[in-house]
């Protein structure tokens, strides 16, 4: 009689056992808190006490009538969109440069990746120093080169502060996007590009009519991650301006932190954070679509 299958041969059992801890972690510590975030946003829970009562739409009514919140919502949108525009332009241009071979490329690549590697909070504090109201090296350089006559209070003026925030976010994300676009460029079949060259396409035609359309899914991935990174980031704004001056530069995460954690009003903090969801759902749906398209394309090849 041959030996029969035992527990140690059963892929389904082994698979379930090996997957269980990860699944449990994700469900208990991501899924449940996620639901809790939404539930809290309808409650009057506070950090100080364990009491928990329904507030219905109270929190939402309160924040929607709050000019600081509306300002933060607008800032979030402006910063996210502005950053992505800057990132896409910078990253496609940088990818065109970095696909070429040149002397010192390894070092250049190392430097290019620095902003992505450094912890956000440390980068933000460095930029705080760069934008300092008295010692800003940017102001010195602009004045020394004769471009600036007055004075720029980078983090003291709402408009300039938002610009500064966008600059820092774009600085932080464009290296990542560049590398993704480079990976995409590398995956374009060489024959297609060569066929275009043989057909007489110059650099610009090749770029706009051959490469960019093929790169679109990859650029989209870079943008989607970029949206998640900017819309949900708390560190840059928290450290750069703390939401100031006079609560004019808050974004949703910093405002949620201020109300929910510092102000101990968990319900309102959660309600503010929940406004991030539409951003994320759009991103998630777009990614699923892209993944499916890539699958279909892959099967066709």
């Amino acid at each position, binding site marked *: *009689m*041959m*030996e*029969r*299958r*035992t527990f140690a*041969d059963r892929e389904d059992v082994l698979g379930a056992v090996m997957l269980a801890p990860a699944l449990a972690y994700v469900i208990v510590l991501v899924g449940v808190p996620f639901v809790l975030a939404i539930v809290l946003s309808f409650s009057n829970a506070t950090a100080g006490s364990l009491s928990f009562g329904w507030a219905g739409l109270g929190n939402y009514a309160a924040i929607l009538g709050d000019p600081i919140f509306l300002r933060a919502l607008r800032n979030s949108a402006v910063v996210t969109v502005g950053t992505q525009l800057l990132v896409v332009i910078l990253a496609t241009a940088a990818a065109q440069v970095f696909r070429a071979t040149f002397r010192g490329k390894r070092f250049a690549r190392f430097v290019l990746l620095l902003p992505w590697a450094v912890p956000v909070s440390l980068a933000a504090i460095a930029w705080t120093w760069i934008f300092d109201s008295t010692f800003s090296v940017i102001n010195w350089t602009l004045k020394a080169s004769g471009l600036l006559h007055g004075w720029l209070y980078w983090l003291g003026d709402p408009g300039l502060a938002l610009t500064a925030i966008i600059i820092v976010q774009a600085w932080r994300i464009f290296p990542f996007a560049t590398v993704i676009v480079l990976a995409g460029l590398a995956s374009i079949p060489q024959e297609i590009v060569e066929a275009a060259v043989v057909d007489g396409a110059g650099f610009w035609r090749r770029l706009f009519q051959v490469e960019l359309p093929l790169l679109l899914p990859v650029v989209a991935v870079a943008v989607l991650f970029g949206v998640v990174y900017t819309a949900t980031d708390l560190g840059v704004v928290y450290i750069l301006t703390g939401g100031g001056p006079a609560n004019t530069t808050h974004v949703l995460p910093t405002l949620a932190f201020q109300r929910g954690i510092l102000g101990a009003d968990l319900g309102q903090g959660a309600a503010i954070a929940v406004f991030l969801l539409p951003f994320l759902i759009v991103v998630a749906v777009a990614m699923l679509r892209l993944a499916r398209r890539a699958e279909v394309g892959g099967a066709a090849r």
Partner: protein
Amino acid sequence: MAGVDIRNLRKQFGDLCAVDGVNLSIREGEFLVLLGPSGCGKTTLLRMIAGLERPTGGEIHIAGERVDGDVPPRARGIAMVFQSYALYPHRTVFQNIAFPLEASRLPRTQIAEKVQRAADMFGISRYLDRYPRQLSGGERQRVALCRALVRDPKVFLLDEPLANLDAKLRNTARDELKRFQRQIRTTTVLVTHDQVEAMGLGDRIAIMDRGKVRQVGTPEEVYEDPVDTFVATFVGQPPMNLLDLGDPALPPRTLLGFRPEHFLPRSVFQPDEDVRAFRFSVRRVEYLGSDRYVYGSISDGAATDTTVIAKLPATIALAIPEGEQQEFAVPRRALRYFDAATGSSRKI
């Protein structure tokens, strides 16, 4: 007896029926080749025998014992050589060959002895301390075979073991494989899509298409008497010519088949030989050294747009001018007939 019996075996992957009711009896000590185009289900069939895939239905018996379903690969008494050879990259040749023995918890001294003996047989004793990446393709193949042999399996399963070798090595490797199998006389099942390999290695060949076994037989049987048009055109290079001439002497909707090497100028045959003659319009002649391929069409009958190929050995030095009509003929004993609707062969 250590044969393999397969009864009504099926395997479904979603909507796709990879193996569709296969019945096959592999005799003890036999070298059976599963031959078919890619995607015909031959590898899936082999993997089900190995126990790497679970059948959707049907039975597999190895050495008289039913194994489908509940017997894991390790308990089936089989050995398998993959196309990539699947050598353990972090283990030396010695450790690779010893690995199956370690599983059966043999004492160390006995393992070393067995490995040494098997390695001698394959002439790889010199490489025992090397890692797979340091070996050539042919050496890797021998290590893989050696590792398969060392367990004394009841059945050998080989999945395209020659496909990764370059063309020069392939002939020698084929010869070695066949000699080695003759020597140990273990039941062997080999999967390939290469008909030359199949003809050269198999005691019998099972030809598969779209999940079904079309024909099982010796190389001669499948070549000389294909059961249907699929086998007729799949085996043989160039493939068998198939023509619907609308010949009133034949039953309606009958395809006439003959091999290119039987289709020769009329003058080659004796005048009294029983042949079927055709008017052949020659379109193009390909000179291939040992042979000439002549492409054209039959100009009498209804099949004037079907390309017909003639394969002339170098011994026939006759000039065949392109663009002209020639008298060609096929010996009657070499003619085969098929049903045009079902494709199956017809005795006439």
